[in-house]
């Protein structure tokens, strides 16, 4: 018994001394803050911060004094946590969600030509500016779906992109993926949006889209604070959008939608109050 205790004790002692010597001899400086920052980041490695993954961002925050609010998926909690680690005043951003500003699916809009080829909006948009007659409408080929690391975007059966407000973390990757700039980051509190992105004149819009904004000004007259008209396109002024919902029924083209009660046609996503079902083994959904 004694030999066993002594024997093991000796082994442990020798090993401990050797390790202690080695850790002195081969010591490397690691900033403990870097590890701590990495710890609080979400770890999804989405790249929305612009750095190669979460550990890259952690390194950048500590070594290059990168802004601490670059992690949209982490939201305010992460910013607060990083701020605490780095000893900074926290600089909390308002949570945002992405919205597809288009309702023009295949049944409601017309096409210029029949597109064949790579299933990607950017690729299609390079061929005569995309198959859709509307120069700013959703092409429905799913570049945003590919870009989204959170499975928050779906393409409906009629080729329209719809974003789930439940799942969207506001990382903004879809915004850059869309060749037509029709995905906009909006405050998460704003649920009423004008779902159109075409600056064409009303007469032109009518020709190619049943549900496009014609710039008729009715919404602006109904709720002057909440709307602004920019080149024949109504937009919600997210700074004063309290009354925006009043205009929903007034819009002659049904462009204004409140995501609290409705989602665009054919979407499997449900309004915020109802939890979307978890997708079953849906198989291949890559392009």
């Amino acid at each position, binding site marked *: 018994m004694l030999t066993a205790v002594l024997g093991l004790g000796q082994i442990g002692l020798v090993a401990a001394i050797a390790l202690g010597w080695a850790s002195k001899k081969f010591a490397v400086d690691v900033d403990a803050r870097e590890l701590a920052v990495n710890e609080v980041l979400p770890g999804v490695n989405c790249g929305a911060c612009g750095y190669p993954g979460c550990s890259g961002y952690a390194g950048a925050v500590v070594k290059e004094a990168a802004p601490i609010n670059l992690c949209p998926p982490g939201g305010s909690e992460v910013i607060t946590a990083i701020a605490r680690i780095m000893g900074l005043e926290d600089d909390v951003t308002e949570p945002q969600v992405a919205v597809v500003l288009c309702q023009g699916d295949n049944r409601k809009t017309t096409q*210029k*030509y029949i597109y*064949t*080829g*790579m299933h*990607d909006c*950017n*690729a299609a948009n*390079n*061929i*005569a*500016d995309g198959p859709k007659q509307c120069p700013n409408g959703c092409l429905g080929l799913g570049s945003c779906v*590919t*870009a989204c690391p959170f499975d928050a975007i779906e393409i409906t059966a009629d080729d329209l992109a719809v974003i789930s407000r439940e799942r969207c973390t506001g990382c903004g990757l879809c915004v850059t993926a869309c060749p037509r700039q029709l995905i906009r980051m909006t405050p998460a509190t704003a649920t009423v949006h004008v779902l159109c992105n075409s600056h064409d004149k009303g007469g032109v819009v009518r020709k190619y889209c049943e549900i496009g904004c014609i710039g008729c000004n009715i919404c602006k007259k109904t709720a002057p604070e909440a709307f602004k008209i920019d080149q024949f396109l109504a937009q919600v002024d997210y700074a004063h959008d309290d009354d925006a919902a009043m205009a929903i029924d007034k819009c002659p083209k049904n462009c204004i939608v409140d995501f609290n009660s409705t989602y665009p046609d054919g979407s499997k996503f449900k309004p915020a109050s109802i939890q979307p079902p978890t997708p079953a083994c849906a198989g291949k959904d*890559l*392009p």
Partner: protein
Amino acid sequence: MDKKTFVGGVHPPDCKHYSAAKPIEVCPLPEQLIIPLSQHIGAPAKEIVTVGDQVFKGQTIANATAFVSVPIHAATSGRVMAIEPRPHPSGKLLPAIVIEVDGEDRWDPSLKGLDVAHWNSDELRQRIKAAGIVGMGGATFPTHVKLSPPDDKPIDTLIINGVECESYLTADHRMMLEHSEKIIDGINILRRVLGVKQAIIGIESNKPDAIACMTKAAAAHDIEVQALEVKYPQGAEKQLIDAVLKREVPSGGLPMDIGVVVQNVSTAAAVSDAIRLGHPLVERVITISGPAVVEAKNLLVRIGTPMEFLLQQCDGIKYELDKIIMGGPMMGQSQLSLAAPAIRGTSGLLLFGHQDLPHIEVGTCIRCGRCVTACPLHLLPATIASYAILGRFDEAEDYCAHDCMECGCCTFQCPANRPLVQNLRYAKAGILAKQRRT
């Protein structure tokens, strides 16, 4: 004569029988010409006329805006009707000068040929730029740029591209048959500009009449005619150099890096016109062909003639169209409508009905490796495409995606009919965007 070639490539059906035997016809003048300001690689030209101006044939109506840019000329006499966005062969609306044709077709009286006594490199180069000459094989790269190699890159060989490896197209073929003397004259001028002695004309051996004709014309001028194996893309610049000289243009480099300049036969003819007669590039030969056209023709067409008008000259179409292609079927652009005009790089206008084109469903890659065998640049197209679809541009770049010249061999061969060229383009765009970010 042994037939030289390169490694890789494919054998698409050549389909040249529609128009190969048809002599070049002069296309009549349409009522108006739509002359886009962007007809070449590089910066678009800037207009110098205003609406209502009277212009002569050959008069400069837009100026070059950079070194890699060329001026644009009126292709006939008439009045400037409008300067506004019009349909462009790229499918977009781009600024164009619309000329109402007066039917008199008067040359600008100030245009004069250059006396042989004044031939020196700089003067000739200046003239070639002023004449708006671009590569007429389809790439539309300004010719004067190719003719201005920096001093540290001595040129020893001029290769004249008479390959015309794209299916259906016969414009260069007819040029060689009917204007061989003019081409030879152009070659002599180009040799003078570059100060080189060796000139080789490469022609695919499926055009024995053109080879015979050019050999005869070239005999007295110490110009070699080289028959090449029939294979696509034999006419691609780098592949042509590889076949003729066994020299490899370095990746990302230009032929001038290895002492070579390549010019198309039609470009050579245009150079001759520009120097001898002072005529700028206002017309070119275009093959109008395809199974759907009633009578295929080789037409001498004014730049800016709407495609609709060209089709009328060929008695229209036999059945409803499915696809309109400007250029060859392997690298040409599909067209949104017939409203766009013929431009300097238009080598052909091809019309297809539904039954003439493949409608194979796109499947998954079965790794058959045919794209690998076909690729004349020895890339792995399927692998790059897979990475591109996933948006993994680092890997695509590692597999040299940016070396792709979009010749279309891989897509032509792919049994799953995957749009590999488009995937590769997508990869290239992604790589560029990534490089710009960092």
